[in-house]
């Protein structure tokens, strides 16, 4: 199996579907000649032509709305937001039109919106956000947050194949940092099925996206304490794998919910509440949340570092839980 970066795996997944299915096309700002701001679609326009790799005007509403119309006409559109933050400009098209069309009018809208998200390199308030919780709250939308190259490919193919609007959050901090073996052939990873990233017995971390690796580093430090940490990578926050979360909670009886998005009303709150409702009797400690504080994402490195949950924060949280 070839080793691919997370970014190459996304390209590979998209290319695989575009080669297999003529209905799939990509539209976004600078996705054509330039190959996308992060080069996910580098070389795509040469291979697929400018009517399947479409450089759009700077108009996110038109991009997502056009995807909706094309999808209803039988295409399988993929939109690229240059940054996840810019999806705010297309909120109405996603939330008002695409998300509700199946329920109220019986018309499925099979679109995929790719959202380069996450912070860690001084992108500031408008190039660093993780808005998955906002969309997970909207009935009719699905939210995918891959952490590994293998999942990045398989989940993207599943997203394109899915008959619903799917938001695919690709974490920018994983693009070139994370590399792993990825099968060459086409495969899918089901939406709504979590992955045990690391098995453990004493405490569970429920997380997704780039925080999987923060949790991993923290778990290694806990090994030195003699505590074994289980990491459950949710992979998709909507639908989310409630059964796997409850199973892990029952197994270790102590749970840390970790995400890079801000804390209040973040998706971790939903997970913590569900564990409280359905696994209360199995817990040996209160469910703990670690998330970004309730502020915009700051620009300056020390501020941003203080904003994004760090390995030390997770280590401290895990130690508290172990000692409880």
């Amino acid at each position, binding site marked *: 199996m070839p080793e691919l970066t997370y970014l190459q795996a996304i390209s590979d997944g998209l290319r695989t579907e575009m080669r297999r299915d003529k209905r799939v096309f990509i*539209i976004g700002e600078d996705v054509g000649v330039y190959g996308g701001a992060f080069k996910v679609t580098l070389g795509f326009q040469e291979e697929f032509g400018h009517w399947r790799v479409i450089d759009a005007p700077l108009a996110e*509403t038109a991009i997502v709305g056009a995807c909706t119309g094309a999808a209803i006409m039988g295409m399988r559109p993929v939109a690229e937001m240059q940054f996840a933050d810019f999806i705010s400009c297309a909120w109405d098209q996603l939330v008002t039109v695409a998300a509700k*069309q199946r329920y109220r009018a019986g018309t499925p809208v099979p679109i995929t919106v790719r959202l380069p998200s996450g912070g860690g390199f001084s992108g500031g308030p408008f190039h660093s956000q993780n808005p998955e919780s906002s969309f997970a709250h909207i009935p009719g939308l699905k939210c995918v947050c891959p952490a590994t190259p293998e999942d990045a490919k398989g989940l993207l193919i599943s997203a394109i194949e899915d008959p619903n609007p799917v938001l695919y959050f690709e974490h920018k901090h994983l693009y070139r940092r994370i590399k792993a073996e990825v099968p060459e052939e086409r495969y899918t990873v089901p939406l709504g099925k979590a992955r045990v990233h690391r098995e453990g017995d004493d405490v569970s971390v429920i997380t997704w996206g780039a925080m999987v690796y923060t949790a991993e580093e923290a778990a290694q430090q806990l090994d030195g304490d003699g505590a074994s940490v289980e990491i459950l990578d949710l992979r998709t926050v909507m639908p989310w794998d409630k059964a796997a979360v409850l199973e892990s909670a029952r197994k270790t009886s102590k749970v840390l919910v970790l995400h890079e998005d801000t804390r209040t009303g973040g998706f971790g709150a939903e997970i913590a509440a569900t564990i409280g409702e359905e696994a209360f009797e199995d817990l040996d400690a209160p469910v703990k949340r670690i998330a970004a504080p309730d502020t915009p994402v700051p620009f300056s490195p020390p501020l941003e570092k203080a904003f994004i949950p760090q390995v030390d924060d997770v280590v401290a949280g895990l130690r508290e839980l172990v000692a409880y």
Partner: protein
Amino acid sequence: MAIAREAEPVGSLREVREAGLDREDLLGVYRNLLLTRGIEERGHILYRQGKIPGSFYTGRGNEGASVGVATAMGADDVGTPLHRDMGVHVVRGIEPWRIFAQYMGRADGPTKGKDGNVHMADSNLGLIAMVSHLPAMLPVAVGCALAFRIRDEKRVAVGWFGEGASARGDCHEAMTLAGVRKLPVVFVCDNNQWAYSTPSHLEFATEHVADRADAYGFEGIVVDGTDLLAVYREARRAIEKARAGGGPTLIESVTLRMEGHAVHDDAFYVPKEMFEKWAENDPLERFRTWLRQNADMSDEEEEEISGEVKKILNDALKRAEESPLPDISSLRDGVYATPEDLDTPHHK
């Protein structure tokens, strides 16, 4: 200063024939026009009887324009009609009883009670259901046109919006994308001069909405929306131009909204003289007079058509009232689509 072309009224039967409609077609158009008005008039009665939950909207004054544009569309063309465009649903062939069922929130309405009033469409008829956020359907219409262009199909999408909706960014973005890619889409602005209580001069600063088309790189046309045949002729030209690869057109059809924004609104803010003036140009009466003067529509033909329409409406009301209210077990159905849902004429 106006930039858009101002369309001439339609004169003779010969001119209409050249535009693609023969006498038989015209009588069919008259039937559709009567049916359009009849559905909304009967809907109004249902509302007063307390049978329609929520509010009730009509397109009084816009029936000719909506029928005119829809008559110009081809069978494989698609559209995103709005709440003043009942004529589009009628021309495309929706069964009127399903509209009444929709109004009353019954299980047999196109949305099965999940949505109300004119927030509906039968996708098998090439129509996509509108949302309240006007003009959010314009980018969707552009997307349909994009699909046709990618697949090199000779099909056209028609997107409707109002002069009030022209103020929103969706309108600008949709026209920008359609213009730069020369997509096969026709934008139809139902300019009924009032966005709820706000008059046109507080919605846009140009003389016409259609003047903007020039800035997007395509043609703008202003047409009298009470002249069904003129609307038809301009829509037909624009649709065929788009089909031939000539890109988008913006048609502004000027009417007056002859009722309030919705049934609760008595439109006190519209000057009385304005209503009186536009009432002289009622689109239905205007077309009926034209048919009698130019196509020799006889008393017998007129009675036959109005009798047929009356029967359709009576039967439709009866059938709709027999339709059950939705079972609450359907509340959670269909939030997410299944792969089987994609088995439609369009999604294949």
